[in-house]
């Protein structure tokens, strides 16, 4: 198979998936629709993280904070101020981006494992506020009965299927924007920084600024996912942004395959499916989730996408060898 054919096959695959995502849901059982909606929201978050983790090489251990900032923007504004969808959307994304702007200043002074620890610490600051600033966030109880958004369109988003389409639209927008970013010269520079920071610096790139902007975008995308997540659940609580969630997002990206937006989406799908399906069949789902963590790192360090492309590569080589 030569290069252009492979590209066409991939495009065909994408188109097919998109058609299924658009046409399928009205016929899906409610439980599967729930899983699909959750997958798409987490996929937005995971793709945002992948921009800094996979493309730039920065492992953030506090990414759930941005989900939380978006979600709490909705929770507080929609219940206490009766704000509409567009207001909460803009505030959620801006708040997450603004906090990322502050946190980025602190975190980007460190690299490697220190970066990991600082992002973890900063994530806990937000978690702590969500937990204890009771007058604003209602603490442990969380904010409940948040109404589904009304966009002034002729149909309501209260039901599962219309809301799914809203999330799908959000996913497509996030995917398109991130894809544009990673394919731009800016995105290529990020990959260059991941591969060799010193080389990029020597070539005259402002490494810090590139990382900082990527960090901001990543936070903003997280806020966007948080807005959708909060409307989806009609509820937000501190457990939406605790450390375990931050690590789960890391796992999604690592499991799917770092450095590909498609991989982050696959990873999100697998983890959401696993968490929900396994807990239906057995009480030991934490054990199984733990085994997935350990197994992923051991047996698929490059993730599912990496393993598949490896396999494709080898089988192509084998074909070549046989035909010669």
């Amino acid at each position, binding site marked *: 198979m030569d290069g252009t054919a492979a590209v066409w096959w991939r495009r065909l695959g994408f188109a097919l998936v998109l058609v299924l995502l658009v046409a399928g849901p009205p016929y899906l059982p409610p439980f599967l629709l729930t899983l699909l909606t959750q997958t798409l929201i987490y996929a937005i978050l995971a793709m945002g993280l992948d921009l800094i983790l996979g493309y730039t090489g920065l492992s953030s251990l506090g990414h759930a904070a941005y989900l939380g900032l978006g979600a709490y923007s909705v929770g507080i504004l929609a219940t206490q101020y009766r704000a509409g969808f567009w207001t909460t959307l803009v505030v959620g994304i801006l708040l997450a981006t603004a906090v990322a702007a502050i946190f980025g200043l602190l975190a980007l002074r460190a690299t490697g494992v220190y970066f990991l620890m600082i992002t973890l*610490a900063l994530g806990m600051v937000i978690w702590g506020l969500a937990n204890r600033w009771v007058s604003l966030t209602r603490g442990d109880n969380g904010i409940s009965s948040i109404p589904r958004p009304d966009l002034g369109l002729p149909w309501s988003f209260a039901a599962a299927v219309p809301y799914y389409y809203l999330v799908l639209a959000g996913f497509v927008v996030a995917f398109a924007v991130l894809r544009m970013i990673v394919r731009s010269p800016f995105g290529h520079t990020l990959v260059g920084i991941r591969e060799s920071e010193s080389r990029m610096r020597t070539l005259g790139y402002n490494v810090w600024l590139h990382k900082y902007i990527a960090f901001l975008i990543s936070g903003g995308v997280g806020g966007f996912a948080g807005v959708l997540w909060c409307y989806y659940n009609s509820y937000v609580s501190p457990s939406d942004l605790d450390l375990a969630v931050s690590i789960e997002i890391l796992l999604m990206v690592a499991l799917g395959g770092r450095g590909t937006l498609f991989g982050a989406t696959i990873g999100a799908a697998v983890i959401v499916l696993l968490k929900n399906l396994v807990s239906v069949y057995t009480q030991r789902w934490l054990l199984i989730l733990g085994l997935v963590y350990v197994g992923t790192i051991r047996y698929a360090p490059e993730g599912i996408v990496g393993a598949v492309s490896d396999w494709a590569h080898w089988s192509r080589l084998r074909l070549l060898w046989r035909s010669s």
Partner: protein
Amino acid sequence: MEFWVTQLFNGVSYGALLFLLGGGLTLIFGMMRIVNMTHGSHYLLGCYVAVTVLTRTGSYVLAMLVAVAVIAGLGVIEWDRFLKGFRGQELAQVLTTMGLALIFQDLALLIWGGDPHNIRVPGLLSGRYQFGVFSFPVYRIFIIVVALAVAVILWLVVERTRIGAMMRAAVDDAEMARGIGINVSAISVGVFSLGAALAAVAGVVAGGFLSVYPGADFEILSYAFVVVIVGGMGSLKGALIGALLVGLLDNFGKALFPELSYFTLFAPMAAILAIRPTGLFGRV
């Protein structure tokens, strides 16, 4: 006045517990640059093992010893089977130890159930100690004494013994240390297991005045991280001061500003990081 003295004392004794946890975590971190998410599990499992031994035999000392031995052994297995190969790959370490932590939590739930467990304190350590107009629980004094003893022993070992010198050499430059014939992997497994054992001590001690339940592992883990981050990753002195600071901040924060109590804990941490990204006593 009494309020302040009591809060101060409570803060210091909680800080002592946090030092037991943070000391082990910072050693592991300094030595191996590993972000160890199983540290909370070692605390949880240490307490549970002690509970089991205590109900079977009634001996507090035996419970402590068995818990420490079991968790130290567990640390050796974890290091040998899962972590040895991931030197320098922080993402792999975080995800692997997180996976192990989830597995441990679920196994603990399976074996010991979901109810909170306490450790019955021996008679010698219960009761209160009268000091002028103030009275302090003997058990909390005991925690402070244990933490101080551990701090002194660790300091002596790291600064004054041959093994400690090898440890410091391996921290500073593992490759050179290997080059001059120091068995760095043996030291690594030793430090990891020592860190696990310290977490177990903390778990047993904590069982005497806090309840320990599935979920307490991650709760205490975030405190231990704060201690290590504030004090400086890899520094024992930093862990001691960080633990005291966190213990006091947490206590006074909860007592004075309950609305913002986590914030009073995490905000100073963020401030310290803003000024010194490596923590108070950390080196780059």
